[in-house]
């Protein structure tokens, strides 16, 4: 085995590093000035073949051959220089890949470029108040009336919901068809009179998600991706992308490093907590999981680079991440001690003490619900990974 990227990749790294050093000089720019500079930087990086690599040139991408090693080198070099990567969010992670796979030429022309530019921000319209893990039971209704879709119902748990101006949504358009066959994948303009949005206040006190109410909201007849009733299948492409992106390794490593940092900062029995044998055991026990996760992400990366099947371990990455997140939360709770009695100041408001860990302590619970709950993922591992028979209630025979 070999964890070095090889000479070809290292030459490429020098090129990328030189580009970033030359082109990313934001200086003292702030506000809209900085925003314009970032947009311009992304254009230059795209022309160089560094960003939007899987997006064809005619839609504003750089259309590069699949090369996970180069992509990784680019991420490392941009992150090293704190240069902005592609615009984030559901649009790039989910909608654009879906349009590239299933969209019409007109839809690609219409939607991809502004998404790449960051002008279109997409909300995901999947969950509904009565529809959580049983996603195919969506009830929000779409009827084709006089050449446009008329939508009525409610969507919930939309991240980026405050800033989103468009939504891709699973809408029941064929009420007579079987559960999975009655859904269509529609694109909706959120800035119209028939749409109302409301923030959802969550455990941490913040509002990271929104709910949307559709009251005779309209969308053009041809803003449907795939055929009528194919929405469930179309959405599977996107969920695959989301799962891959949630399971990334770097964030867990960084979170664990912060935990170690916390153990250095806080005291226990008059000395830094990290010198306490019990805390050292606690930290190294968690680190075992962190290492297993990191090494498994090397493994998946390597398999992807060789274009080989990822196997069962890919199904486990999200669960491994969130389960370890719980362990980190409990350790942090032990370390911060009485600070857990204090509400942390909101982020972005000056220096935050150890009580800022409350965000992680509660946020870890959100992570294990978003993108498929822990129990759903256990079922996926058991059925798709271990080949156990399907649950009768979930369509098994």
């Amino acid at each position, binding site marked *: *085995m*070999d*964890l*070095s*990227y*090889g000479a*070809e*990749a290292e030459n490429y790294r020098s090129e990328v590093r030189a580009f970033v050093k030359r082109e990313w000089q934001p200086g003292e720019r702030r506000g809209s000035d900085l925003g314009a500079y970032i947009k311009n930087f992304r254009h230059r990086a795209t022309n160089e073949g560094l960003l939007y690599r899987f997006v064809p040139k005619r839609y504003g991408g750089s259309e590069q051959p699949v090369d996970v*090693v180069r992509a990784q080198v680019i991420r490392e070099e941009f992150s090293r220089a704190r240069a902005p990567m592609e615009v984030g969010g559901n649009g790039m992670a989910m909608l654009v890949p879906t349009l590239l796979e299933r969209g019409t030429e007109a839809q690609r022309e219409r939607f991809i470029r502004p998404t790449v530019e960051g002008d279109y921000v997409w909300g995901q319209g999947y969950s509904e108040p009565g529809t959580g893990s049983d996603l195919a039971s969506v009830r929000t209704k779409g009827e084709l009336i006089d050449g446009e879709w008329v939508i009525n119902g409610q969507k919930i748990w939309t991240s980026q919901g405050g800033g989103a101006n468009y939504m891709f949504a699973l809408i029941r358009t064929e009420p007579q068809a079987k559960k999975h066959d009655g859904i269509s994948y529609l694109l909706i303009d959120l800035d119209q009179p028939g749409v109302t949005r409301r923030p959802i206040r969550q455990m941490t006190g913040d509002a990271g998600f929104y709910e949307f109410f559709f009251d005779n909201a309209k969308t053009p007849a041809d803003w449907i991706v795939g055929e009528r009733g194919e929405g469930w299948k179309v959405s599977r492409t996107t969920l695959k992308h989301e799962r891959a992106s949630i399971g990334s390794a770097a964030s867990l490593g960084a979170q664990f490093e912060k935990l*170690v940092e916390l*153990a*250095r900062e806080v005291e226990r029995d008059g000395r830094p907590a*990290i*010198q306490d*044998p019990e805390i*050292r*055991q606690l*930290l*190294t*026990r968690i*680190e*075992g*999981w962190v*290492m*297993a*996760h990191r*090494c*498994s992400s*090397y*493994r998946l*990366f*390597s*398999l992807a*680079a*060789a274009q*080989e099947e990822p196997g*069962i*371990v890919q199904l*486990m990455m999200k*669960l*491994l991440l969130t*389960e370890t997140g719980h362990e980190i939360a409990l350790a942090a709770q032990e370390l911060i001690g009485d600070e857990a009695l204090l509400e942390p100041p909101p982020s972005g408001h000056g220096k935050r003490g150890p009580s800022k860990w409350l965000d992680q302590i509660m946020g870890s619970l959100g992570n294990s619900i978003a993108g498929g709950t822990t*129990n759903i*993922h*256990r*079922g996926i*591992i*058991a*059925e798709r*990974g*271990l*080949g*156990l*028979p*399907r*649950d*009768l209630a979930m369509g*098994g025979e």
Partner: protein
Amino acid sequence: MMRFHPTEEQLAIQDALRGTLADSFPKERLHELVDGDTDFDKPSWDALMALGLGGLALPEIWGGAGLGLLDLAMAIEVLGDGAAAGPILQHCLVALAIASSASEELKARWLPELASGGTVATVAWGGEWLPEKWTVKIEDGVLSGMVRYVPGANAAHLFLVGTAGGGLALCELEAGMRVSAQHSSDRSRRTATVTFKNAKAVELFEPGDPTVARLFDAALVLIAADALGGAQHCVDLSVAYAKEREQFGQPIGRFQALKHQLAGMALEVEPARAMMWYAAYAWDMQLAEASRAAAMAKAHIADRFVSVARAAVAAHGGIGYTWEYGLVIWFRRSMFDRAYLGSPAVHRARAADLAGW
């Protein structure tokens, strides 16, 4: 070029070992050994050695295949899965130690013998596991002292003995040694107390020689590999049972509670595989992190083995609790892998030290 998954060759070696072990060491034979009074199985020992296991990580000039610790660890993983009996892991370690020494004479004398398996070797480090705590004294070429928990001592002719201060000596079975079998819980790898009273020995590494620490790290990686294989066996056995066992008119593997337990077991084991690879890779590449990675892998994976062995009994129900079914063999091996060379807590404490915390 970046590559962090097994090569075709590594998978082929694993397949060959798996097949050879299955043929030469059928389940009935394993049960015979467990119910008998020895853990040394000549037919499977000879078959595995004939395949080249003893020389896998030895240089080619000494009859080896010239491969690395990673390849050896992947081989040991297969043996852990199959509950191979006797001191195979220890035998390979002794060969690795001699190959790391400066003595061409010792290499010529022993390596071809160990590669072929004609001489059986084992490691005597037990009781006080960490090199700095070893106690056997060596003076003027003779050993005195006592070591507990020596696997395969009944079959071994050559012993790699840990000496006071962290040295290593090589000792042939001789009159100054007394081997007394312990009543071992893991009957596929039985241990003995070995007492040295003026036993002649050759000093292989002086106390403080960095090679000793490296060999100890290699041992940790190999025991982690054994634990990984054993843990995988527990998962596979439980999943297979859940598919065939019927209750309430359907396979129990359809019930969500059991499904989630089995998924939890797999979640413990499969990600640990790459962790074991990493520890072996770090050793082969002599990365700065190698020692710490070995300690972390031993601690984490031995814990996983114990955990899934317990879960496997629970997943089986009554049959898993019987002697006859055989899950108990892996259960007891998990307890061996956890304790042998130091408990997870010992190695986690070392890992914290090594991180400079």
